């Protein structure tokens, strides 16, 4: 018995090793696909902008072929789903083995800038793209911390708006989109009947939740980070803002409780285009609408209501969203990668791709195409240039998205299962998120 103990400990150790190592192996970090070693290729990780990864490949292929024809450089394209993109970029940053060029959500700019993984776009480098002046102001503001050279260049401009189903509005006797929060709630109540709902939200999507926390926070006058960059999520204003968003489901009941399960970023859109919900606060959904066969006769786009004058917040109803393109410092073919950035910001490519995705070109000279004269695009453009604010460009921005977004997932889950969610409960969750930011 006594002599067996060392052996037993060894067995115990081996089993634990095997088990924990298996656990570690299963973590979904994926090794970066090796960048092309030859100078004739570059590897490009694109974000998922279309209806599916396949759809993105179809949209991008003709453009990439044109790039190959012009420069002789082949592009290894991989479309990375949003759920994996940040992890993949972090893994590539850590290992130094990644693609040459990558799309990033522009809200991550400052966080990723802090890693120092990307080639900074100083004035000289920006000149090769036609200079700073060529780019849209708001989009360029979301490319990194102020005062530092952009960590990435904007390629698709986006922002939030309120999509509404014209047919459902007509049936409910509503003749124009809501302009105030009271109108939105009243319209939502009229639309909510017979298994249909006023509004669809992606209640378990961390990033959607975080974006709305930011937008409504600004409407209430909340500042997520103080002047020194310290997080301050649990202000009274932010608490009220999140409560207001949750109440659309909890109190006004214009949101289907099932939306609390929606996590992958497509289900709320699906509810809207399939007519299960009459309104949707979202960024561009051009490819989804096109696939469903919708035209501007079927849907409209209005700005999300601004806060009432008595509320004391800011006149903000959207965030500066969009996609930026970054070049890894470790790129195997940095020269080719910079050429690719020039190609992606060229007038022709900007027009083709933004047309396909229903997003806004980020360079001013691309707007002479009639496709950007549509009602939807003009409304988005108007919002982006007047009432959209960029998310705080601080290094901890992505942690804010994760922590506050997660807290809201749980709050939505509580609301959906009928638990009363008070302001104190919201505040407690935000305080937790605050503390988890650590020092």
């Amino acid at each position, binding site marked *: 018995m006594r002599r067996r103990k060392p052996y037993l*400990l060894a067995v115990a150790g081996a*089993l634990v090793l095997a*088990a924990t190592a298996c656990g570690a192996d*299963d973590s979904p970090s994926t090794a970066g696909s090796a960048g092309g070693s030859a100078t004739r290729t570059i590897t490009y990780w694109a974000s998922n902008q279309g209806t599916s990864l396949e759809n993105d490949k179809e949209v991008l292929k003709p453009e990439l072929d044109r790039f190959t024809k012009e420069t002789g450089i082949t592009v290894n394209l991989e479309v990375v789903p949003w759920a994996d993109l940040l992890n993949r970029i972090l893994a590539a940053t850590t290992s130094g083995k990644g693609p040459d060029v990558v799309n990033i959500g522009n809200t991550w700019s400052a966080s990723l800038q802090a890693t120092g993984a990307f080639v900074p776009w100083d004035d000289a480098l920006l000149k090769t793209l036609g200079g700073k002046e060529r780019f849209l102001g708001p989009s360029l503001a979301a490319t990194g911390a102020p005062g530092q050279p952009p960590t990435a260049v904007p390629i698709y401009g986006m922002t939030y708006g309120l999509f509404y189903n014209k047919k459902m509005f007509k049936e409910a006797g509503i003749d124009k989109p809501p302009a105030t929060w009271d109108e939105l709630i009243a319209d939502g109540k009229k639309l909510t009947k017979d298994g249909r709902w006023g509004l669809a939200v992606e209640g378990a999507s961390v990033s959607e939740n975080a974006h709305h926390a930011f937008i409504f926070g600004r409407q209430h006058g909340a500042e997520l980070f103080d002047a020194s960059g310290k997080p301050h999520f649990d202000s009274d204003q932010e608490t009220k803002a999140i409560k207001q968003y949750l109440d659309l489901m909890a109190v006004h009941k214009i949101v289907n*409780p*099932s939306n609390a399960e929606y996590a992958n970023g497509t289900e709320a859109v699906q509810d809207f285009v399939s007519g299960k919900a009459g309104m949707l606060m979202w960024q561009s959904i051009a490819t989804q609408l096109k696939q469903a066969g919708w035209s501007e006769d079927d849907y409209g786009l209005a700005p999300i209501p601004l806060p009432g004058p008595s509320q004391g917040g800011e006149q903000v109803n959207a965030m500066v969203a969009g996609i930026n393109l970054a070049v890894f410092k470790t790129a195997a073919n940095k020269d080719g990668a910079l050429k690719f950035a020039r190609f992606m910001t060229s007038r022709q490519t900007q027009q083709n791709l933004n047309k396909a995705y229903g997003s806004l070109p980020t360079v001013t000279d691309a707007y002479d195409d009639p496709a950007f004269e549509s009602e939807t695009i003009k409304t988005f453009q108007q919002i982006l240039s007047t009432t959209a604010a960029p998310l705080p460009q601080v290094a901890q921005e992505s942690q804010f998205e994760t922590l506050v977004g997660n807290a809201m997932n*749980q709050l*939505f889950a509580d609301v959906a299962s009928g638990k009363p969610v008070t302001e104190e409960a919201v505040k407690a969750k935000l305080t937790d998120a605050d503390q988890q930011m650590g020092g």
Partner: protein
Amino acid sequence: MSTTSRPGAGRRPASPGGTPPPGGPRRGIAGRVPAWLRRAALPYLLILPAVLLELLVHLVPMVIGIGMSFLKLTQFFLRNWSAAPFAGLDNYRVAVDFDGAVGRSLLHSFLVTVAFTVLTVGLSWLLGIGGAVLMQGSFRGRALLRALFLVPYALPVYAGVITWSFLLQRDSGLVNHVLVDQLHLFGERPFWLIGSNSFVSLIVVCVWRSWPFAFLVLMAGLQNISGDLYEAAAIDGAGWGRRLRAVTLPMLRPVNQVLVLVLFLWTFNDFNTPYVLFGKSAPHEADLISIHIYQSSFVTWNFGSGSAMSVLLLLFLLLVTAVYLVATSGRRSDA
């Protein structure tokens, strides 16, 4: 054959009389090592490649992980870990400070995981032993049933669990369709993927996935029990229940010892099932520790803190395993 000319070579017992060693022109270290040592070293040399690989694959990442747990490793130092400031025991202090948000949620997650593991292992074992005992006697269709029972184990995790996540959706899932629309058991459609039911869902899916393994192992164990024992017990007038208690279970003890331990470790560390079922952010009620640690490191970009939690988890599992093995082996040798 010049080796013999070297001084001292002739003194080796392996080459009496100064004749060259039978191995031919052997030089260097091998030539100078005494034969008894060479013979003794042989088995170790043979397993050396395996040991080195084991170190490389399992131990080195763990040692790096332990090292990381003492660093303040955030996004600022991802590209160059060596520049990350030394944090001492700070990461550990935060993890076990149960008054703070981080420690409190870690403790919650740990308790959820313990409850989840005990229930999952218990139910898997019960189903496994039940299935194995029922399949012991031969009957028509036994092979088919056995194969059917093993299907969940044979399916890729992702395929099996993602199907469950579709089944469990509130509006369009089959589970609610059956429970609510067909059987009218609930007035309102319950949620299975969020809220407190998510804990139940997680256990159901995990038991579904792991009981076939218990079944397989116990079935193999039963094959080794001699029929004579059952015959003798039957002659003594033991009924079915008595035979189970007096023959089957004691004879399965060594199998059970390993089975329960392995199931425990797998279940406690299970990452795939909750990740595929719930996505990145698990519901509070089903916040298993593997997902929790992943959240704490990868998602909030605080890899030092995540590593510290992993090390604590490793120590806990090591302790449980050692205590379990010592306790169960002790009882066996007393018996």
